C-alpha cells in the first residue's frame, strides 16, 4: 500500500480475480460433490459433512480424514495425517507473504482461511508476472478469485451429501481433479528452471509415494524447488 489507488483500479482487481477464477468453479464443484458423497456414505451426518467443508476447506485432507476414520485409526493419527496433507499450505503461506504480507491483519487472516491450491496457484502466478502491483490490488485480486469458489465448495458438498449415491459412477467426477491441477501449473512452466523443477518433483513424488503421511509430496516439492532455484542462481539468463 505504498501509493493511494483510484477506486476504479480496486474494482478492476476484483473483476480480474473473478474472471481468472471463474473456470475453477467447474472443477471445484464436482470435487466438492465427490467429497459430499464419500463423506455421507461413510456415515457422517449432514452437519458434520458441511462443518468439514466450511471449516477445513481442503478436499484432499478432508478425504484423508474420512478414510482414516473409516479405517478406525487412532484420533491422533487421523488428525496428524490429515494435517500433514495440508503442510503444503505452509509453503503457499510463505510464497504469498511477499505479496500479501503488508495487508491488514484481518485481511491476512481472511486470506489464510480462504487459502486453497487454486487461490494460491492463480495468485502466485499472477503476482509473479505482475509483481509491481500494490498490495491493495493483490488482496482484491485474491479475494476476487476465492469469493466465488468457496460458495461452490460449500454448495457442491451439500449436493453430494444430500444426493449421495444417486450420482452414477460413470460421470467419473474424480477424473476432473488431476486435470484441474495440471491446467493450473502447465501454463506456468515458463522456463527451463520451471520445467526442471516440475520434472524432479513428479519423478520423486512417484518414486516416494510409499512414504506415509504425504511425506513423499513434501520431499518431492522441496527437491524440485531446490533444483529450480539452483538453475536460476547459476544461469539467470535462462530465466528472463
Amino acid at each position: 500500500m505504498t501509493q493511494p489507488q483510484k477506486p476504479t483500479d480496486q474494482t478492476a482487481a476484483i473483476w480480474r480475480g473473478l474472471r481468472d477464477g471463474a473456470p475453477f468453479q467447474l472443477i471445484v464443484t464436482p470435487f466438492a460433490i465427490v467429497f459430499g458423497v464419500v463423506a455421507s456414505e461413510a456415515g457422517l451426518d449432514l452437519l458434520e459433512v458441511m462443518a468439514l467443508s466450511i471449516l477445513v476447506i481442503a478436499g484432499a485432507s478432508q478425504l484423508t480424514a474420512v478414510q482414516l476414520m473409516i479405517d478406525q485409526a487412532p484420533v491422533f493419527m487421523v488428525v496428524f495425517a490429515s494435517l500433514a496433507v495440508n503442510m503444503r499450505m505452509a509453503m503457499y503461506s510463505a510464497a504469498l507473504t511477499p505479496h500479501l504480507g503488508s495487508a491488514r491483519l484481518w485481511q491476512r487472516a481472511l486470506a489464510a482461511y480462504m487459502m486453497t491450491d487454486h487461490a494460491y496457484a492463480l495468485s502466485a502466478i499472477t503476482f509473479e508476472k505482475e509483481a509491481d502491483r500494490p498490495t491493495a490490488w493483490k488482496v482484491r485480486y485474491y479475494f476476487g478469485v476465492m469469493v466465488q469458489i468457496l460458495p461452490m465448495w460449500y454448495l457442491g458438498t451439500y449436493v453430494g451429501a444430500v444426493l449421495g449415491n444417486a450420482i452414477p459412477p460413470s460421470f467419473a467426477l474424480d477424473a476432473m481433479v488431476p486435470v484441474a491441477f495440471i491446467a493450473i501449473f502447465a501454463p506456468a512452466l515458463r522456463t527451463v528452471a520451471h520445467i526442471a523443477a516440475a520434472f524432479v518433483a513428479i519423478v520423486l513424488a512417484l518414486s516416494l509415494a510409499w512414504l506415509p503421511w504425504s511425506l513423499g509430496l513434501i520431499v518431492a516439492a522441496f527437491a524440485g524447488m531446490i533444483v529450480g532455484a539452483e538453475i536460476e542462481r547459476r544461469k539467470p539468463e535462462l530465466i528472463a
Partner: protein
Amino acid sequence: MISPDMPVWLVIAALAIGTFLIRFSFLGLIGDRPLPDWVLRHLRYTAVTVIPALVAPLLVWPAATGGTLDPVRLTAGLAALATGYLLRSTIWAILAGITVIAIGLGFAG
C-alpha cells in the same frame, strides 16, 4: 462406515484449527518483513513443484480404478498438460482434459 465411537467433532475441530494455523503461519507471523533473496528464489518454484507432485500419483494410480493405470485418465492429464503449456491457458487446458475424459469414458462405457 465410521464407528459411532469415533469423536468426529473432535477431529473436525482439530483439523479446522490446525489447518488455519498452517495457512496463517507465514502470512501472520512474518507480515511485511522482507524475506531473504534465497528464500524468494525457492518460493518462485512452489507452484510448479507442489502441484505436479500432488497430481502425479493421482494420475498414475487413480483411486477410482483401484490404483491401476487408466489410459483415459492419463491421456486426459497429458492433453491438459500439452494444451496448457503450448497455449499458456488454463481454460483451454481444462477443456482439453474434459474432452478426452468425455470421449474416452463415453466410448469405453
